[in-house]
């Protein structure tokens, strides 16, 4: 447990910053380079680095696998839900103007924020799922066999 003291301390310091940066990339994405894909990966990195430096059990206590699976699917629902809303409001699928009929440019802003939120949630979920899937695999074969 005493291994890698510096690594542990720095990681703890970094995780908050990484998450904050992810949120910045996420929500500033309609003005500057960024958006859901990048933010989702950065957010996932925060969890993955915690898992690598501490342990899989620790990170799974913060973010249990079932939550991650639901996240991956929920993001798609947010994305498609935005589209379905505009569809039932009498606009084309994913026409963001539906979100603010009197001021379509505002609608574009709301729309892109919602959709990118969906993308971000899904990408975070998928990235962490992939990490969990590969690390939580109990080795049936011992390390020597590889």
């Amino acid at each position, binding site marked *: 447990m005493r291994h890698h003291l510096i690594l542990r301390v720095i990681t703890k310091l970094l995780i908050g910053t990484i998450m904050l940066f992810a949120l910045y990339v996420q929500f500033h994405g309609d*003005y*500057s*380079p960024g958006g859901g*894909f990048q933010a989702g990966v950065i957010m996932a990195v925060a969890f993955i680095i915690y898992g690598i430096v501490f342990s899989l059990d620790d990170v799974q206590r913060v973010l249990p696998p079932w939550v991650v699976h639901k996240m991956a699917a929920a993001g798609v629902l947010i994305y498609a839900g935005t589209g379905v809303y505009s569809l039932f409001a009498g606009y084309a699928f994913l026409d963001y103007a539906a979100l603010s009929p009197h001021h379509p440019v505002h609608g574009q802003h709301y729309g892109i924020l919602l959709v990118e939120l969906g993308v971000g949630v899904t990408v975070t979920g998928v990235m962490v799922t*992939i990490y969990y*899937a*590969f690390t939580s*695999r109990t080795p*049936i*074969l011992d390390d020597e*066999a590889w």
Partner: protein
Amino acid sequence: MQAFDWDFIVGHMNYWLFIVLMMTGFYIVVAKGNLVKKIVGLNIFQTAVFMLYISIGKVTGGTAPIFPLDMEVDPAVTYSNPLPHVLILTAIVVGVATTSLGLALIVRIREEYGTIEEDELLKIEKEIALQDIRQHSEVIGERG
């Protein structure tokens, strides 16, 4: 045409890069027996396509296609074409999905077969097939 057209070669730099990367990746997929190496080859192969797309989006003298803060686009400024980049964002996501699915399959193959070398896998599968024939071939045998 000149025997050695330097401008032609340099001017098509991105295509040379594309061809070299693409063929490297393709060769690895075809020639390497290790399943993980095949996936790596596939990744290089796909990266070549990303390079092709991104390089054709470049406009000479163009800058990054981002709206200025006041949202007023100056028609005098040349912008690079952002569309290929967006397309490639999608293709990269597809590539990540393919890679992780391929690796997941390799993990399962390793668990079931105990190897990820193609020649050994083929040997095992041939044995299974021979066993199948021995077990089920009396149909043909009877008639023969």
